[in-house]
């Protein structure tokens, strides 16, 4: 595990989101990228051309490395998108 939640912050009750068919824990207000990182996932997608793993990079919505399909919408920037209860993320 590399990314971890800072323990001193109270986050309320966890919710659950689906990532590639697997339920992971998330908290209200969190970005999808943060929830995926906290679940131990760093490779968010593989590139089409080079089949290379990509993950969180710029964190501010400019690099488009952290994109995933969210609730059926492709290429959503997970660093800019908050989790919602029952949201479904499919990795690209």
């Amino acid at each position, binding site marked *: 595990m590399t990314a971890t939640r*800072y323990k001193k*912050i109270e986050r309320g009750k966890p919710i659950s989101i689906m990532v590639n068919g697997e339920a992971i824990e998330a908290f209200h*207000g969190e970005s999808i990228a943060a929830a995926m990182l906290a679940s131990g996932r760093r490779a*968010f997608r593989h590139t089409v051309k080079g089949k290379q793993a*990509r993950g969180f990079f710029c964190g501010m919505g400019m690099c488009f490395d952290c994109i995933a399909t969210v609730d059926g919408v492709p290429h959503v920037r997970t660093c800019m998108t908050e989790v919602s209860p029952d949201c479904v993320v499919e990795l690209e």
Partner: protein
Amino acid sequence: MFEKPEQTDIAIIGAGPAGVAAAVTAAHAGAQVTLLDESPRAGGQYYKQPALDAKDKQFPPTVAENIRKGRELLSDLQHSNINFQHSTLVWNVLPEERILNLYGPQGAQNLQAKRIIIAAGAYERVTPFTGWTKPGVTTVGGAQLLLKSQGLKIGQRLLLAGTGPLLQLAAVQFMEAGMEVAAILELQSRKEFLLKAPKLWGHWDKLGQGMANQKRLLEAGIPFKFGYTVAEATGDEEVNGAVIMKVNGKGIPVLGSEETIEVDTICLNYGFAPAVELARVAGCTMVFDKYFGSFAIETNENLETSVNAFFVAGETRGIGGVEVALLEGKLAGAIAGSQLGFTPKVDESNLRKEQQQARKAVAALGTMFPLKSGLCKLVKDEVPVCRCEEVTAGEVRRAIEMGVTQLNQLKPWTRVGMGRCQGRICGGILNQMLADETGVSISEIQPFTSRAPIKPVPMESVGGGDDSGEFTWEDHVGYGAART
């Protein structure tokens, strides 16, 4: 194609320190202000507020202090003259009509304003090396945002590499949160640093901040290595370590100086570059900022650009930091307001004096931490330099050998800058590569042309696409080809 636009007195793009200061000043003068930002919350990157329902005292102390200051500034946005539209991208601008094309929670919208202030902020500069696309390599600012907005520690053991004062500040924040900082690599040599340090003489706040951070890192025993850079991110699919190298005064790596270091995360920051693309779509003239080595938007002393009714403030005018951004925001808000017949409640001449002093102090800081094109020697031919289109350094070098001298020639030749980020990351890198390979000065190499949409938007927002409601590749514009 477009509905009749909404009307406002002053439209401000970017709700960071400059944009917020502009909005508050103009609103207090009596103008109707529409403040637009792509993020769900105001604050920009510098004053990014927590996305969680958490009290700031639960955050590590240095981060908590930053959050508190930001919240204080943002509380002034609660003014009846300010309409803040969050999660809204300004993807195009029609300069003559002063119309902005927006895409936000309500879908596509158009906004017409009498004055437009662009305060779009800046991007972090990075430089490529073997393995730099692996998960686990991030920007320093990205890792900071995860901490202050999400309360997330990005890794267990970090390497910070780049140049400039952000490295030390971020290291202090990461350390306070309980992350281990294995080392900080500063591109400049100790000698260069000491030779240039007297330029900061008189700018005591900047010197003081830097020294306080350095003292804390020293006490914590964190190695601070002058004249070093990261040469490789190791690991199969994700980062499990780094190879670091000494560099000479030109940034050229010294062979044989390689050391390996075990880390799970590598954070990069080689300074910043202004976000100029929207102002360029409007037609605003650029100027080369010699202090920070990047193109910025040119203005007169009233912060007016070459395009009538368009102002820029803060980083878009040239890297300046938070104090400059706040002062220029106020100034732009006041001048735009008074041009429309309102009476700003600020002392304009005093403000101008403070702004010019603040710019001067920051220029001194900029010259201390230049990016060095010799770093390109580190980039092996097989390393992708354009992350989106996965164009390698070798492909770029071959194009340069064939006679390419400008970024806009490289683009059709190699596909660099044609992907989703639209050259925001590779633009600065390619600039350095061209300078390094051809010997031409950075200031002579024109950046990529900016075109609307400045970021990918669904086809429906530009009045096209099919009506099936299903998203497809073809339903997005601004992606270039769907190759990656």
